[in-house]
């Protein structure tokens, strides 16, 4: 029993990473109906920016804030320059665009900061949290930040006019334009927010996985798994999905014979495929009906 509790705790701790990433995935999906395959790379790049700022002597939290602003603006710029012209293009073209972005960002990060692994600081410290060997204070801090972010997003979308406008633009663009909403900028805003959330995810994850251009490869896939599990249309679902994937991964590694560490990733992927096939809307998402 104790093993079980411990594994669940450890699962929640890793799940916080996935939850954060999944939030960013859901943000973009809400805005443009696409999965951004470059989301992880954008987050990695943001993390490098914050690292660079700290290298230049800027204090952690200032670097953090500055990075959020830069990422937000950067996300908007990327949308305006590269993806706005693709808005009406077929899905395939958009997927190709995301992959191109992935390649460029990854490669440029490598060119600027090279591919060696770098240490990344944590503001929460890394001592055991409340005496538990399984959760460190950093991981606890990560869970806290994720939940805080979720609440902030909820408040933003439920109680602000711009949040309402974004929801309207995402659910029915034509009607949104007819009430005077500039839907094109709502999409750009969605990109900016997703990029900033990704930056938070990257900064939280970096102390755990270390900073390097390929740090987000695996994380993004878990983020996708979490977002798909929770439902691509629900931020709450994304966070829930993140924790569930974390727990599931740890329990599977412990209890299913032959799984161990090496099969954790395939398990997450099997989870994606299973959810997509059995319940494509995810746990909390809205079903989507297609019409000819």
């Amino acid at each position, binding site marked *: 029993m104790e093993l079980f509790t411990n594994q669940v705790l450890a699962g929640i701790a890793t799940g916080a990473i996935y939850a954060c990433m999944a939030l960013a995935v859901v943000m973009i999906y809400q805005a443009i*109906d*696409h*999965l951004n*395959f470059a989301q992880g790379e954008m987050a990695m790049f943001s993390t490098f920016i914050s690292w660079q700022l700290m290298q230049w002597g800027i204090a952690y939290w200032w670097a953090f804030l500055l990075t959020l602003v830069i990422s937000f603006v950067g996300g908007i710029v990327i949308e305006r320059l*590269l993806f706005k*012209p*693709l808005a*009406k*293009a*077929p*899905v*395939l*073209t958009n*997927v*190709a*665009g995301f*992959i*191109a*972005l*992935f*390649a*460029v*960002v*990854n*490669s*440029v990060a*490598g*060119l600027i900061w*090279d*591919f060696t692994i770098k240490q990344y600081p944590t503001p929460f410290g890394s001592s055991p949290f409340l005496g538990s060997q399984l959760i460190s204070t950093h991981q606890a801090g990560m869970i806290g930040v994720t939940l805080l972010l979720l609440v902030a997003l909820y408040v933003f979308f439920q109680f602000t006019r711009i949040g309402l406008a974004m929801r309207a633009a995402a*659910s029915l663009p034509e009607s949104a334009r007819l009430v005077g909403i500039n839907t094109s900028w709502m999409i750009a805003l969605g990109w900016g927010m997703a990029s900033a959330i990704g930056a938070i995810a990257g900064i939280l994850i970096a102390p755990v996985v270390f900073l390097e251009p390929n740090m987000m490869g695996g994380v993004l*896939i878990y983020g*996708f*798994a979490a977002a*798909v599990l929770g439902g691509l249309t629900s931020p709450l679902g994304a966070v829930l999905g993140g924790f569930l994937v974390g727990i599931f991964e740890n329990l599977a590694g412990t209890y299913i014979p*032959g799984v*161990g560490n*090496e*099969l954790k*990733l*395939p398990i*997450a*992927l*099997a989870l*994606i*495929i299973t959810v*997509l*096939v059995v319940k*494509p809307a995810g746990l909390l998402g*809205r*079903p*989507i*009906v*297609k*019409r*000819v």
Partner: protein
Amino acid sequence: MSAVEEVVTEAPAVEAVPKRAMTLGLGTSLVVLGALVLAPLFVKNFIIFQMTMLLIYGLAVLALNILTGGSGQFSLGQSAFYAVGAYTSAILMEHAGMNYALTLPIAGLICFAFGFAFGQPALRLSGIYLALATFALAVAMPQLLKLHFVEHWTGGVQGLVVTKPDAPFGLPMGQDMWLYYFTLVITIGIYIASVNLLRSRSGRAFMAIRDNEIAASAMGVDVALYKTLAFGVSAGITGVAGGLGAIAVQFVAPDSYTITLAISLFLGMVVGGVGWLPGSIVGAAFIIFVPNIAESISKGLSGAVFGVLLFIVIFLVPHGARQIAIVAQQVLSKFKK
């Protein structure tokens, strides 16, 4: 509360390609064929090897093209099928001592079955979701190959070394050249078969599904069957390409078949022009030579060059090499007048 559902009319996943525009004219085909037959006689072994790889990747891109350009389904997971084909050939050759040529149809069949089986769950997915599911498959594949309980067969992380075949019947040519012609014959065979497949009843069913799935099913096309069939055929051809690849490279290892390979093949298709079968070879050339050239300029640059070129293709020539070919044809016909 009754269910609130969003109703969306989704644009087709890929733009429709007229059926005739999917192939080359007879004259052009013969010129290309002639070039492919004669070229190896004048170049060094290493270049012959690269040309072999060009054909092999060309086959893999062609396979993806049948799936996407033909039936409108996506795959970011072709590397998984390629890996299964490569490992099938390698294991049969090294563990069972089978002749290399015989392993290829087996690799094709196993991949066909694998693709067909994967096509079953994929049936319920479309567009971006299918991209995600296949992406997941591609990421998982190297891990699966490293698994403990298949290590005896796959060689684990180390992989397997494959012996390169000699030319048979005492033909006076080197291993590289023999393998090139061997691959060329297979490639041409599969190319012709693919063209015929797309022109057949099944091909028309694929395209009906691509253009409008619901309408296709209303016309009596068995959508489930043809979608899985497209996956099967595509995987099968990719498997043959994988088997050939294993023989040509003389080595299989899990990390040769990562998501990068899947993405490369996807890019090859986009660059070559979705649905234009001859473009597959152009796409293959792009994914083989561009990284090489970029890496020779600066290490780590290939990703950026790749990405930037891809953006250029998307924005300026969204139909890839097909578009360039059409423009060239128009220019030529003007000169003739």
